[in-house]
């Protein structure tokens, strides 16, 4: 079972963990590891990373941070009588990497957590909300098609002079207001159909095609255990890292290695899962 085929609950547990951990720490080792894991997962699962764009973002944050933050001992130079410090620059780099890491995790979340999974989640919170959500999803292509039809009809009739910008704008406003009538009037029939299928009943349940499998249980337990270990590390002084007044990372002990190892496993779970899955699949195929 691929990572993206896990039950939505498993995925939520995973993403909440990694995104929360990525957001709370400024320890450069952990930030870099999270960034690296997110990048790998994106490359493997989402087929792409737009890395250039994000490198520019990191660069921008690294440069702007010293302009606002003047803490730190090591002055590089003065700009408009303001101290530009090495520490603030480093802080900027790390916070840029952290931000892009978080964005990458969200990107992966967006790619893996498809419409039906999002709908499952909303259905758990509020069955009616999930109905609105899936109705709206259904209406979007319909509305776009209707808009195009109305636009074409009006264009052929030449009701509006489209040679000027004002005329074009006028045409679009008219199309849009016609679209409102068309969409809602049609939807009322849909609403009546829903009512005749019992929508206005209380205690609506929310059905989904997702089934909670054995692997999901194992996955969630594994994530929760690693969450616990990682939380221990993050709350202990071992993790503390100081940028100001000077960069210090004094609490390093050998046991830190163990925590970092668990941290890596946790963050690499999507990659580990999909690579072993691929290998197993190739192996099974080779036996045929």
């Amino acid at each position: 079972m691929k990572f993206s085929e896990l039950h939505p609950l498993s995925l939520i547990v995973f993403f909440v963990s990694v995104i929360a951990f990525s957001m709370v720490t400024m320890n450069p080792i952990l930030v870099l590891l999270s960034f690296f894991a997110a990048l790998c997962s994106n490359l493997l699962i989402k087929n792409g990373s737009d890395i250039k764009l994000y490198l520019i973002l990191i660069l921008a944050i690294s440069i702007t941070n010293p302009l606002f933050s003047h803490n730190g001992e090591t002055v590089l130079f003065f700009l408009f009588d303001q101290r530009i410090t090495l520490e603030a620059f480093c802080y900027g780099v790390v916070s840029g990497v952290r931000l892009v890491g978080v964005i990458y995790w969200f990107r992966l979340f967006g790619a893996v957590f498809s419409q039906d999974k999002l709908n499952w989640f909303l259905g758990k919170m509020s069955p009616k909300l999930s109905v609105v959500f899936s109705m709206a999803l259904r209406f979007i292509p319909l509305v776009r098609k209707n808009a195009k039809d109305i636009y074409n009809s009006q264009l052929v009739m030449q009701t509006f002079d489209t040679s000027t910008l004002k005329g074009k704008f006028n045409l679009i406003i008219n199309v849009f207001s016609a679209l409102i009538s068309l969409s809602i009037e049609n939807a009322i029939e849909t609403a009546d159909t829903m009512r005749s299928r019992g929508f206005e009943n209380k205690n609506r349940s929310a059905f989904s095609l997702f089934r909670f499998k054995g692997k999901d249980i194992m996955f969630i337990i594994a994530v929760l255990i690693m969450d616990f270990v990682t939380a221990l590390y993050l709350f202990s002084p071992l993790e503390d890292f100081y940028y100001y007044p000077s960069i210090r990372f004094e609490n390093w002990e050998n046991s830190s290695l163990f925590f970092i190892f668990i941290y890596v496993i946790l963050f690499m779970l999507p990659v580990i899962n999909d690579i072993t899955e691929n290998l197993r699949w190739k192996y099974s195929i080779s036996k045929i």
Partner: protein
Amino acid sequence: MEILNIKNLTFKYPQTAADAIENVSLSVNEGDFVLLCGSSGSGKTTLLRLLKEELAPFGERSGEIMFFNNPTVALVGQNAENQIVSDTVWHNLAFYLESMGEDSNTIRSRVAEIAEFFDLSRLFHKETANLSGGEKQLLNLASVMVTNPDILLLDEPTSQLDPIAARNFIEAVKRLYEETNLTIIISEHRTEELWNFANKVFVAENGRITEHKNSNDISDDCIDIPFGVKLFKVLNENGKYSPSIKGIREFLKENYKNDITSIEEPQSAGECALEVKNIYFRYEKNSPDILKGLNFTCNFGSITTILGGNGSGKSTLLSLISKINKPYSGKIHIYGKKVAVLPQNVKTVFTRDTLKEDLSLITNNFQRVAEELGINHLLDKNPYDLSGGEVQRAALAKILLTEPDIICLDEPTKGIDAKGKGTIQKILKELKNRGKAVIIVSHDADFTAEISDKCAFLFDDQIVSEGTPRQIFSSNKFYTTYASLASRQQFKNAVTLDDIINLCQRNGRY
């Protein structure tokens, strides 16, 4: 055993003068298959909606509707799109069960069973936006069958579908009827396939609905009766032959001579209005060609029909003629001054709140056209408050106000009953007589045969045959008219009811 009894039911919509249903008394037994026929506005839809409590219209109502043994009632209406309640196929099927608060396992097995029965399993995960009209309507049928109904009401379920999808749907309904203990009441314009299958026929006329016993009690106004019944009525045949294709064949063979076997074609030649030369078209750079080396012409003072199934590129061709899209190769010469298009969804023509405002957007001199199309009494209404036939005429009025000399119509008979088709036919013939070029895109063979001067059959991105309707339909074996199928052993090129009657009368009886 009686399941439904209606006694002296009368119903009037608010702010209307006439009763929509007048003093109707009917009885339906458990396991009946009832065909309800009659033109639009005759009270069919009103009756069916009154039988389904949640969809019952508001208005003044007297008389009684009695159900026995508490049956569950389900209804499928005519607009397939508007009855889709969610974005995926499986969720539509599950919707009712969710409303009832059923747990996941129950829903899973019920939904699987229904999907299997209606052969929807291969569409199960699809988004409804990617379904065809026929698939959508089948999904609607399946979704109401989840509610375990005892009475199934079908309100013109195939009127928006193409002939093939319509036939599939009717087949599914028949199978459903044969394999379950369902009571079905269906209203339909295409009655040929159901007339013999149904064990009861109700005929609706101006709000009066009565049970039909034999063809004599149907007045000439009711046009929705099957082809065979109509033919037998004109030729004074009663009772001996069944009104099916086979029955008509026997009847003609045993009763009429066939010395004259064909009808002479009138010669007609107008000036060329439009010439499409060797065009190629695709929507996007990397998508396949929709039209490939297509040639097509039409003349002033004639009606040309482009026939073809769904997705054959008919509507695309119209969009090229009206310059919404451009071919990437080939030429389109338009010799007329102006092209107008009546789109498939006619409501897209309107943008304002009253018909009057909408017409005045084009010109203030709309009185004459409005009169001709019989929409004068509707001018102060909102386009969305009009009935199907009315809104179509109103839309036609608006496009005619632009003074086009080439008029294209995209599926003008979709959702229109026989009476409405008659009206359009009259209007289009009038336009033709005024020297306009009329182009119709349609898959309605019977309508095409009656109205066109020329047909072009579009298949697989090009026009494969072209000629008069008599040439095309008499040589087609499957894609042809009911009249042609029923008479081809006897006559060479009779493709409409009038053709058969004409030849029969000229040949005379044995």
